[in-house]
């Protein structure tokens, strides 16, 4: 089964797949472009089944065409986020053992293919190739211990079908898209196309463009981060969105005031969702989100959830604990180090989300924090340990701790506490410049604080806030 082939077999080739700027593109065009890319990869560039092919391209119609082209060539699509630093990009290429990279031009559809010679295949390649791999998200996963989350073709399909039980996307839907495609693809872009919907990409992420894209195209769904909802409220008096049926806020908790303002203007209260790279979209708060604005809702029909204590004992409703979920479309493996799904899941079926949650008496879940240290800034997740390791590479830095603080407008922003080596001098500006060369922009701390010491646990680990 190849998800890209199956998608085009069932689609209406005359229906509109993507609208961006002044142009619209049909499913037929998407099929034709992606087939051409697949053919060129195989015939001109020697791409073989299960080769891992990276993609660097700005979001838009051609991003989707390139990604589906890679999958159609039976290769495994590896998004390379444009904001990665050169060092991060090199690390991705090496740890994922990429066979090639497409660098695409989102305006013209032209691309350059760079073939990478791998001295020898990694030890896991044979098993990987046998799994019909489709997509690798190069992230530290939800737990921070492994790099690269593998999703196979059948997994993508299962995951999309499970997610759509809550989203209910149909060919009549037009989804306003503002999130980065290299971070969000499986239960969003692919799901929308699988269900024959239209993706509407506004020229910018500012309110006037989102609203005009929404009204001109009679958009029905908004899938965005809390910051996008915040920007929308800048032009509240202009918000008129008569066709909106579903607004989903994902990646981090939306501020109650922003949700309220948006709901008042549109009549639709944002539904909080919990999307997890390993698990898809297990939660979306579709049932009266206005009554429980901070809740992620009930588990979607295909999923089960439970909250367990520190030693995996059951926890009473109303008490916080670790959120575990079970359901279809879970990731197939971690790449580095190679670990198959079954060996990662608790009792072979439950995924530890790393979230601390509470379940109320009616079965609704609310997130309360993290048992793992992941940080989410503006919809992009990363681990503080990764940033601390880079900070400590600076010759003047003895120790570092990266944390977040609440910002009244943006939710969380990150800051770093730094202990300097004795006799060493360093300014915040110098250290930030050092970080910017080595880290993606969203991982670079917004603030640097020089401190005398970093608080530690009794076992000597950095004490997390």
């Amino acid at each position, binding site marked *: 089964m190849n998800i890209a082939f199956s998608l085009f077999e069932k689609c209406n080739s005359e229906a509109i797949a993507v609208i961006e700027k002044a142009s619209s593109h049909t499913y037929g065009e998407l099929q034709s472009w992606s087939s051409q890319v697949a053919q060129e990869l195989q015939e001109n560039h020697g791409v073989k089944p299960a080769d891992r092919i990276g993609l660097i391209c700005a979001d838009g119609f051609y991003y989707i065409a390139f990604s589906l082209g890679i999958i159609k060539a039976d290769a495994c699509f590896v998004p390379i986020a444009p904001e990665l630093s050169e060092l991060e990009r090199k690390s991705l290429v090496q740890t994922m053992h990429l066979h090639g990279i497409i660098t695409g031009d989102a305006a013209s559809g032209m691309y350059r293919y760079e073939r990478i010679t791998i001295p020898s295949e990694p030890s896991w390649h044979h098993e990987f190739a046998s799994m019909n791999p489709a997509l690798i998200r190069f992230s530290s996963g939800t737990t921070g211990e492994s790099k690269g989350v593998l999703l196979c073709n059948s997994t993508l399909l299962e995951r999309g079908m499970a997610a759509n039980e809550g989203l209910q996307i149909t060919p009549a839907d037009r989804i306003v898209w503002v999130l980065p495609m290299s971070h969000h693809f499986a239960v969003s872009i692919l799901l929308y196309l699988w269900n024959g919907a239209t993706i509407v990409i506004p020229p910018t992420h500012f*309110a006037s463009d989102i609203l005009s894209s929404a009204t001109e195209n009679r958009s029905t769904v908004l899938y965005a981060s809390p910051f996008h909802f915040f920007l929308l409220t800048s032009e509240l008096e202009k918000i008129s969105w008569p066709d909106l049926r579903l607004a989903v806020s994902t990646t981090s908790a939306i501020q109650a005031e922003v949700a309220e303002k948006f709901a008042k203007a549109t009549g639709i209260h944002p539904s909080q969702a919990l999307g997890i790279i390993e698990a898809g979209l297990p939660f979306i708060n579709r049932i009266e989100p206005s009554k429980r604005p901070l809740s992620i809702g009930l588990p979607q029909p295909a999923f089960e959830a439970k909250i367990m204590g520190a030693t995996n004992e059951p926890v009473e409703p109303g008490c916080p604990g670790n959120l575990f979920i079970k359901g279809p479309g879970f990731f197939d493996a971690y790449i580095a180090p190679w670990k198959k799904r079954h060996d990662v899941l608790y009792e072979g079926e439950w995924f530890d989300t790393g979230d601390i949650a509470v379940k109320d008496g009616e079965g609704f879940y609310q997130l309360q924090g993290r048992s793992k240290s992941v940080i989410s800034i503006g919809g992009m997740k990363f681990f503080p340990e990764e940033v601390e390791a880079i900070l400590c590479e600076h010759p003047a830095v003895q120790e570092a701790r990266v944390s977040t603080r609440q910002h009244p407008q943006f939710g969380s922003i990150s800051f770093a506490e730094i202990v300097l080596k004795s006799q060493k001098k360093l300014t915040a500006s110098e250290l930030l410049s050092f970080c910017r060369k080595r880290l993606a922009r969203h991982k670079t701390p917004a603030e640097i604080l020089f401190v005398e010491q970093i608080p530690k646990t009794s076992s000597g680990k950095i004490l997390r806030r």
Partner: protein
Amino acid sequence: MNDALNESQKKARLLELISNEILEVGSDFDENSNLHDAGLDSMATMQLLIKIEQTFGVQLPTTKLTKENMASVASLAKII
């Protein structure tokens, strides 16, 4: 802090901040260059607003965060 700076000083600070810390821009980037064309997406916008807060000591009100106001260094300097 921002009251002490005139508009051209604000523009100079903004140009420095944007070209050094927020966007990858060429040497021809100036106060009238279009920030949206230069790649000011939502993440870059958030980071720019945090930097403005730190540099100028002001939190821009939500109603000022429009596409037009955020279109160039020149238009941005007017709302700080």
